[in-house]
């Protein structure tokens, strides 16, 4: 069986690059700002990258991954994008200004604007774009592992990328799930989530290089319950996690840490907590969305990078902004915890009841 190694990665979010992000996580800090630029009468917490040109930053992050890799270029690499909004921000800009579609380029509106933009800057063997809302880049990694395992490709570049836009900020507000403060996942009195933006890039290859982390297992399921609310019995979440464990050849007791989906909404955290408490016994769990916000289609790739860093640092991330824990059955650390971390699970759940879990392990 051909294995999947994560040989390089880089990210950019409201917490800066990956090094800065991990320092912020371990320092128990949040990078969420309270913002009124999208909805002047409704302040909400957002995770803003603070860059002028999203696509220029995307190019820079991908270039950093190329430079740290054993590749001269991406000519023998499949680009697999995960995104939930694609070029929506640019379309909004034109539509809000012109009140018509005449200056909207359809090819820059679609999800594939990300692969199109990167194909302009780099030469890829091929490209493919996944869009399953907030599991987009997790499902890109699921496909990547399977493509590598059957020998279809040697190198796959995962790009999770989503920019803030009015549609998502105002849309989540319409669902009444946004927090006007910094989000507090797993807290008893949590108010909701913080929408955010990020770019997260990982190079997956079939042979390891120095410092590689292995993508050991992938598991996916559907709730078949509701378009936005998770199944209160958590059957879909449990199924995705169990499938990922099975794929990795592990049991629940092997997992040292779970990077939770942990959006901070009442519905998600309750159901995810139930799923974890059902399947695991006292595993450490926290949500780094308290630091970065929910970066939607980029979140799984960003949290995959965090999971790799947790293994390399041997340090469990604390639950930033935690006040009073709602589910006492969960083992949620309030301070960074130094310990050997061999296996990490990362959960992602999305609209449509789409669930994907990933399992990562250190390479001996």
């Amino acid at each position, binding site marked *: 069986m051909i294995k999947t190694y994560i040989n390089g990665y880089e990210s950019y979010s409201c917490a800066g690059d990956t090094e800065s992000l991990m320092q912020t996580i371990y320092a128990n800090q949040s990078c969420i700002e309270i913002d009124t630029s999208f909805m002047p009468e409704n302040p909400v917490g957002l995770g803003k990258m603070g860059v002028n040109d999203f696509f220029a930053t995307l190019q820079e992050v991908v270039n950093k991954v190329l430079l740290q890799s054993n590749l001269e270029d991406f000519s023998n690499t499949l680009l697999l994008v995960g995104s939930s909004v694609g070029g929506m921000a640019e379309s909004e800009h034109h539509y809000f200004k012109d009140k018509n579609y005449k200056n909207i380029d359809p090819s820059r509106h679609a*999800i594939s604007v990300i692969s199109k933009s990167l194909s302009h800057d780099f030469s890829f063997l091929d490209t493919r774009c996944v869009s399953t*809302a907030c599991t987009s880049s997790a499902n890109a990694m699921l496909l990547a592992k399977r493509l590598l395992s059957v020998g279809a490709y040697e190198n796959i570049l995962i790009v999770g990328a989503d920019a803030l836009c009015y549609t998502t900020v105002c849309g989540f507000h319409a669902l009444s799930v946004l927090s006007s403060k910094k989000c507090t996942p797993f807290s008893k009195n949590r108010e909701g989530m913080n929408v955010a933006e990020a770019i997260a890039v990982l190079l997956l290859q079939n042979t390891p290089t120095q410092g590689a982390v292995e993508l050991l297992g992938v598991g996916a*399921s559907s709730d078949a319950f509701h*378009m936005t609310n998770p199944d209160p019995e958590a059957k879909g979440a449990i199924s995705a996690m169990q499938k990922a464990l099975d794929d990795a050849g592990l049991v629940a007791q092997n997992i040292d840490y779970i990077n939770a989906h942990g959006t901070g909404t009442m519905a998600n955290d309750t159901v995810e907590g139930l799923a974890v408490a059902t399947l695991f016994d006292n595993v450490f769990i926290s949500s780094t969305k308290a630091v970065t916000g929910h970066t939607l289609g980029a979140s799984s790739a960003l949290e995959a990078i965090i999971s790799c860093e947790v293994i390399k640092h041997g340090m469990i991330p604390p639950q930033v902004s935690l006040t009073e824990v709602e589910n006492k059955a969960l083992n949620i650390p309030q301070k960074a915890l130094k310990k050997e971390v061999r296996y990490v699970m990362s959960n992602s759940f999305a609209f449509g009841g789409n669930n994907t879990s990933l399992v990562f392990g250190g390479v001996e």
Partner: protein
Amino acid sequence: MQNRKKVVLNIVASSKIAAPIKIEDLQEKRIVPKMMIRRRLTRNAKIMLYIADQCEFKGGKIVYGSAFGELQATVGITDAIVNATQISPTLFQNSVYNSAPSYFSLLYGDRDEIITLSSGMQTSRDVLRSSALQALVSGEEILCVATECLDIPHIDEVNSCQSYLEMGAGVVLSLAEDSLDAQEIALIEEDGIIDSMKDLWSVVTMAEKGIKKVFVYL
């Protein structure tokens, strides 16, 4: 392309449909008897459910694709923002690209994997490729389906070349035991069919001509 890994797939069932403006009879009352679900469906969902029904697919792994996704929901949201009116929560939940197969999951109680792709004009090619991967890895039948619904007000401001505004195509695929009589996908140029649908539309056309196996590159 010659060195790329390819698999041989049986075309178990197939269906396609298109209309210049709006597909009239998608049999939604029969396919979706529950009004509460039916009234929330997007046009992509109605077409996708119709294709699945025609293929007699009731559950299992799905690979779905759409280059432009849920344009009607997206337009409803941006119009609400421009007009400073309330955004409908249903419109927002329907705006994600995986809405259509998620409604299938709700309707049939399907708890299996759903992958949604949106690769621009390569969308249905990539839906076929990812379906081939899923069939190879799982050994199961896969519903491989793509739809496009471009029928929004003032679409003519951005569309000058697509004469069909609604279309869908799908096949149920399974891993073939041998490559006997299998054919490479012959891309068929059909006026009005958007390029994002071309590969899957062509496979359905091949199936209609009696071809039962195709090669698909991973």
